[in-house]
């Protein structure tokens, strides 16, 4: 199942028909979901946004907590809100448990965020307390050099995937490409772009 290729289309079709939302009041399932985020934590190389497409795969394809449109909405909210956009995981947890009521949804959101942050946090503590040993180790040098280019490839793949998931019409695509160019070439805050595009969306110029 790891490699998609030709059978991908079939898989998507079967996913639509067989994917049943996971009931999160079942504590066993909640632990399973937390375990999934715990396991992803140490693979968030180069920041955290490298996990975006994994989050989509989990919350839309694997556990069917959300539709792709809802996932896109939550990612946009996480980008628009102050603070690191990796807090998206909290919103995904919230979406996963929304049908159980707001209180359970918030609890699940917090637990999901804790799960995704805990392993990487513990690793930082360990390295911080023994940095002098790591500092000049060949392992550290090789790891640092190797992860850079890998992160580059992952970020491009994530960017393209998110673009394909988000833009189903030409107007949206034009806006996305324009935003990408503006972010790279100017210092205009993305919040302004969010505001303008939100307005354009409200007027029906950008739609999905």
């Amino acid at each position: 199942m790891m490699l998609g290729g030709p059978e991908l289309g079939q898989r998507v079709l079967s996913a639509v028909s067989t994917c049943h939302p996971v009931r999160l009041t079942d504590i066993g399932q909640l632990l399973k979901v937390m375990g999934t985020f715990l396991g992803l934590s140490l693979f968030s190389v180069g920041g955290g946004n490298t996990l975006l497409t994994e989050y989509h795969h989990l919350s839309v394809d694997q556990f069917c907590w959300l539709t792709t449109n809802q996932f896109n909405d939550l990612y946009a909210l996480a980008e628009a809100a102050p603070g690191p956009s990796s807090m998206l995981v909290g919103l995904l947890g919230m979406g996963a448990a929304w049908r159980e009521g707001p209180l359970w949804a918030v609890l699940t959101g917090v637990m999901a965020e804790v799960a995704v942050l805990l392993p990487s946090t513990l690793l930082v503590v360990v390295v911080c307390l023994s940095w002098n040993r790591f500092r000049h180790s060949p392992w550290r040098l090789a790891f640092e050099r190797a992860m850079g280019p890998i992160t580059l490839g992952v970020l491009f793949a994530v960017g393209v995937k998110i673009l394909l998931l988000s833009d189903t019409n030409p107007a949206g695509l034009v806006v996305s490409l324009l935003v990408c160019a503006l972010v790279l070439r100017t210092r205009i805050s993305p919040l302004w772009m969010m505001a303008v595009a939100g307005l354009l969306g409200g007027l029906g110029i950008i739609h999905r």
Partner: protein
Amino acid sequence: MTEPALAQAPTLRQLFTGLLQVALSSFGGGLSVWSQRIIVEQRRWMSNDAFLTGLTVARLLPGPNQINLAVYVGATFHGLRGALVALAGILFIPFSLLMGLGLVYFQLRGLPLVDRVLAGMVAVAAGLALSMGFKILPTYKADPVALLLAAAVFIAMQGFHVRLVPLLLVVSPLAMLWYWPRNVEETKP
């Protein structure tokens, strides 16, 4: 330039309020600039060198860079307890806000106007996602092996839908082998 003397090591409470201040100050963006300004210049907990070491570690290790940095600062002074307190400090307000925003979203997502406004914001978010790769591309322009490696990773994910975790488990050791420091000099300070 001589650096001013360092202040006393922060208590757990000071650690929490300091990182709360970092989170609040950076609401318009520029989290890393604010961390440095508050931790090094205002509160004088760390020398600039120590802070930059923290930044190196934060970027090197998995996890969101700015959160890793907060954890590093906390761990420097109070080990694991300090790390958790710092984490709480930097996340408390933005995460509460985001949860609030999430509650509003899930209540109102059925409204046509909300959906239309979000459609516009989604297009912007997609543009931001696309820009991430371009942002770090200049670093690797002169390194053909790095570009080849990045291209292979891109094709595996985008063309063959290989999932990130198995991909990293296979590619990282190979890349580390390639980039292993070949002469002893490289590993010296």
